[in-house]
């Protein structure tokens, strides 16, 4: 009881403090919103002038790019100004900044650009990005405070529950489903054999069976970092449901389940994955991961889609661009990854990672 009081007291202080940071964040967001809108409109209305301003040649391609970037600016500007909780739009601006920096990086490499102007533009983008990050951070922390204040507000919660909540602070909750044109027995059997998981969990570096219940997982994270943990099956209902959780002491705390439910009248089987993941770096880590397309919701969605492709068609869907690590035109790749070559040569199709 004493513990709980202390906790609540600390929290009230924190709310007061961060209340100010939330207000600052919102004011900053408004400013960034108007900035986005103005910049975007200028880019759409006068793409040629804007291209020259940042030192890139005023040609069709750059004008098109400038208009596209302008549309994005207008969208995020409107998003920030019109939404009661503009946090997501502010983080979208950070994503836009990253994109702009990569475009400017391309301009550096080109010999048709005015380097001084490109440099000035790069400095400007870095400056704005710092503001965007600051703003996003303030709003994000403010939201997290609101959420925890809400939890504290319900006084009657038992101790175990609040410990559970703390353990999952910053956790991402994911629920995703897909409908597959196969019976639940077949899908359960495929999923239950952990040797099959790497075939469709394409974001995973490695999934290794330790014994019938336990497995070792290694995931690729943002910017080349990998995270590893051991997981254990906590529930196993044949043809219906498999649940798992990371074992005590794991660096990435996660737990989840997959259920297989047959729909009537040949409508296939609904496969639903539910997961809670505590991403490294907490809520902010999750936001940054999101910018790089590695957020858990997207990963689970990708895995389910790949699972469906493999069980329905026998393999992952591959187009001419599926092996390219960077943007690649839709034309045959000049070289295939060695794993794919080997698999096609020997006929041992393993559905290697794309």
């Amino acid at each position, binding site marked *: 009881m004493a513990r709980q009081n202390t906790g609540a007291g600390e929290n009230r202080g924190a709310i007061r403090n961060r209340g100010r940071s939330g207000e600052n964040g919102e004011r900053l967001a408004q400013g960034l919103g108007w900035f986005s809108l103005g910049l975007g409109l200028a880019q*759409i209305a006068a793409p040629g002038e804007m291209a020259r301003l940042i030192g890139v040649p005023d040609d*069709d*391609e750059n004008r*098109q790019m400038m*208009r596209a970037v302008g*549309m994005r600016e207008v969208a995020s500007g409107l998003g920030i100004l019109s939404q009661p909780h503009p946090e997501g739009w502010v983080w979208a601006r950070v994503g836009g900044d990253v994109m702009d920096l990569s475009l400017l990086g391309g301009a550096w490499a080109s010999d048709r650009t005015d380097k001084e102007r490109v440099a000035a533009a790069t400095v400007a983008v870095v400056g704005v990005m710092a503001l965007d990050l600051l703003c996003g951070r303030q709003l994000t922390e403010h939201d997290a405070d609101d959420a925890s204040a809400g939890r504290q507000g319900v006084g009657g919660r038992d101790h175990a529950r609040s410990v559970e909540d703390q353990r999952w602070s910053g956790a991402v909750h994911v629920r995703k489903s897909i*409908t597959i*044109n196969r019976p639940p027995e077949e899908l359960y059997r495929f999923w239950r054999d952990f040797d099959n998981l790497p075939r469709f969990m394409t974001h995973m570096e490695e999934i290794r069976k330790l014994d019938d219940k336990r497995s070792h997982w290694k995931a690729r994270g943002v910017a080349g970092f990998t995270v590893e943990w051991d997981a254990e099956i906590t529930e196993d209902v044949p043809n219906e449901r498999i649940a798992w959780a990371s074992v005590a002491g794991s660096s990435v705390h996660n737990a989840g389940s997959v259920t297989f439910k047959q729909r009537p009248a*040949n*409508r*296939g089987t609904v496969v639903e994955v539910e997961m809670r993941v505590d991403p490294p770096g907490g809520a902010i880590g999750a936001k940054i991961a999101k910018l790089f397309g590695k957020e858990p919701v*997207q990963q689970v*969605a*990708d895995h389910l*889609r790949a699972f*469906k*492709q493999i069980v*329905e*068609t*026998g*393999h*992952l*869907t*591959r*187009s*001419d*661009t*599926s092996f390219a690590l960077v*943007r*690649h*035109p*839709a*034309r*045959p*790749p*000049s070289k*295939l990854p060695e794993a*794919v070559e080997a698999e*096609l040569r020997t*006929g041992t*199709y393993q559905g290697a990672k*794309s």
Partner: protein
Amino acid sequence: MRATCWMGTKDIQVRNVPDPKILNPDDAIVRITSTAICGSDLHLYNGFIPSMEKGDIMGHEFMGEVVEVGRDVKKLKVGDRVVVPFPIACGHCMNCESHLYSVCENSNPNAWMAEKLWGYSPAAIYGYSHMLGGYAGGQAEYARVPYADVGPIKIPDGMPDEQVLFLSDIFPTGYMGADNCNIKRGDTIAVWGCGPVGQFAIKSAFLLGAERVIAIDRFPYRLKMASEQGGAETINYAEVDSVPEALREMTGGRGPDACIDAVGMEAHGMGLIGAYDRAKQAMMLETDRIIALREAILSCRNGGTVSVIGVYGGFVDKFPFGAVVNRSLTIKAGQAHVQHYMKPLLEHIQKGDIDPSFVITHRLNLNDAASGYSTFLNKQDECMKVVLRP
């Protein structure tokens, strides 16, 4: 191999690129003997379809000879002559099993991109942007054909390429446009657009039992083909005050029983409304100009069907939805489920009901693809359909 590459808006070049390889065990490689430029390729040419990359290989209407098969391919063998349908379909998902091949759930590896724009992703299409799969197209010497046992149809010896090539897209597309009209004896069908798909829609409407077909366009040579080859009555929209009024008078004050939009997103309009849509599209305030579709909706009889087979990409403006609701109209649309129609339409060709080669006006070597695109776009030299031979 040589391939027709999209290098930017209105910039098509034939370039040397790597040969395609088998990437999955149910792939086949086809050596292309004939391929065509589609009206929908002009939307790419004009830069109206997002997610094209410099260097993409164009083309989704092609046929040829199987030169290599993956180890899981059962129905095709090396040496077979095949026509390849433009939507890429797995044959195993629920939609494929329901013959809705152009909305296959598995064939688009970039489904997430299409989902951002359209909610869910349709099937992938050869040579038609990264949002629709990033698959190399067929205006080339060779193409990789995924799900080889599902899509390609074998062509018996003795049938020339030109008779069967259009089973890949425009004949089934025009046919589905008419099929979606649920035509009954005595029906009058109006068709907007007398390009190749419009021509096939006209012929198909008659094959399906229409009494009259009224064709609408502004190019005299296209209207002439509609009337002479297709047996349609015609309206030149540049010469009448109002297409809906003209149709009302031609149908005893009731309107056509069904209207087919074979025009799509780059419709041309006369006068103020045409200028309005052009301006909005140029300013990127709407992606698609729906002049033909608006007319089709306003012209259709109460309780009738508007069948849309022209390609639209994004968002439209001033859509007369009040007319749809209050007059009990049915709108049916879709990219053609080509795999569903290929066999019966091949039989129509074999029986002599139709010879699809009537639309061909230009035969070029693949090397001249760029001039083929500009001739087709500008409707020079009474251009109707360009066939390329590698």
